[in-house]
């Protein structure tokens, strides 16, 4: 049987096809539309520099872009955490300037998602919103497919609980 090697497109094509996915993933991770835009742009800037290392045989373009986006988002979250600690240390507890994307999400869903951890939102974004299979999602998260499925199941269970309580309220 002849093995077909995956086709490698240009990065511009890949960006056009997967921009929304990367943006949604980063938005779910950060819950900050402005940060999501910046991180999405940064993801593609990094992708331009690393494009020569992309190997279609090791994963799809979307998986590869999500891995870069995750690294960028984690850097952002670390920086955010440091900033928050610094602000707490100086007793200037400023409210987060960012607001979730109010236009695209229902308020009850937005609040329910906000009450979840970024880890839960991340797996929901990858598996439900981006519709990645467990293997690809696990590759992005650095875990096994079965661990990814377990993590998704727990995240959805928590989301259902939050949605239920939101609706009751």
């Amino acid at each position: 049987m002849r093995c077909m090697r995956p086709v490698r497109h240009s990065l511009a094509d890949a960006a056009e096809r997967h921009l929304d996915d990367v943006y949604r993933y980063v938005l779910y991770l950060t819950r900050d539309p402005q940060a999501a835009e910046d991180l999405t742009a940064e993801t593609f800037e990094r992708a331009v520099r690393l494009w020569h290392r992309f190997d279609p045989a090791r994963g799809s373009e979307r998986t590869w872009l999500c891995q870069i986006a995750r690294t960028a988002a984690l850097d952002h979250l670390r920086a955010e955490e440091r900033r928050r600690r610094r602000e707490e240390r100086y007793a200037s507890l400023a409210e987060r300037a960012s607001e979730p994307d109010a236009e695209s999400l229902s308020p009850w869903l937005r609040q329910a998602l906000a009450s979840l951890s970024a880890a839960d939102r991340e797996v929901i974004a990858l598996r439900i919103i981006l519709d990645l299979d467990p293997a690809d999602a696990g590759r992005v998260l650095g875990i096994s497919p079965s661990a990814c499925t377990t993590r998704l199941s727990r995240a959805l269970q928590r989301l259902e609980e939050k949605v239920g309580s939101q609706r009751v309220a």
Partner: protein
Amino acid sequence: MSPELVAVLRSETPAAPDALRERVAAVTTATPPAPRRFTARRVLAFAAPVVAALSLAAAVAVGLNTAVSPGPGGESAAKVAPPAAQDVGAREAPGLTFGPIDEAAPESSRRSAAPAPGAGRAQDYRATLTLLVDGTGELSTTTQKALRTARRLGGYVVAVSYSSPEPGEGTAAVRLRIPVSRVQAAIVEFSGLGRILAQDTRISDLQQGLDELTREIRRLERRAATLKGEERARLLAQIARLRSQRAQVNRQAAFATVNLDLTTHEPKEPAAAPGRLERALDDAVGILLAELAIAAYALIVASPLLILLAAGLLGNRAYRRHADQRLLERA
């Protein structure tokens, strides 16, 4: 998993704003920077085969080089065949040695292979003959024949050692003193007692020392003739000592020492000398094995450090992954 909730999540998927779309399009359509030419992976991918090829080339070169130069047992090694009977004394050599006989030489030449002592010169003549005989019965007979031959030729037996540790197998070592004038005949007779396995003849010149002793005695005698009393007695005693010494050397020169080793053990055939190609291959394989041994040694020495490094990298990776997960759970 609630299908309804999943459907809601999928229906409410945010899209990237147009501004972001334009921003990303501007980034991705720009010319990407040229990748680095010499990455660690590329250097390693190039260096590994180059090092392997150099090692192989060095091994082959050394193998070919040693195959061309004559080896100790190689084809071009000179075979030392004992010369035929010759007047060693005429050469005035202080000592001559003739090694083991050439096994390939015909039997007739092997029988007369021992050099003759020098006529008219005092020499220390020593010969060793190793003979193969069939069984212990013949070993005993041959030993007795050798003793009889020595006596018949005017010689005498210094020592005899006979050993037969197992039935049918045995060795005998006979040390004989044969008059120098008849040693050639004795060796010819001894060589007919069995198959010659080895022959070693050593001749050392004693004449020079003998002449010096004679000159010294004459000088002391002339001096003693002019002296009287205690001084003369002292010189005469010294002359007597020197004469005794000269007589001892003369006795030594009058008889040759012949060591006769008889054995029933068939010697093993020596391994055929390897050919040039075989030697080249052997040497190349030897060099490669040495290189592998050095590489293995280096690996063994460096392995604790490599293990520590790998453990550190794995630990750091696990720690970072754990830290990322905690960060995501907090965020």
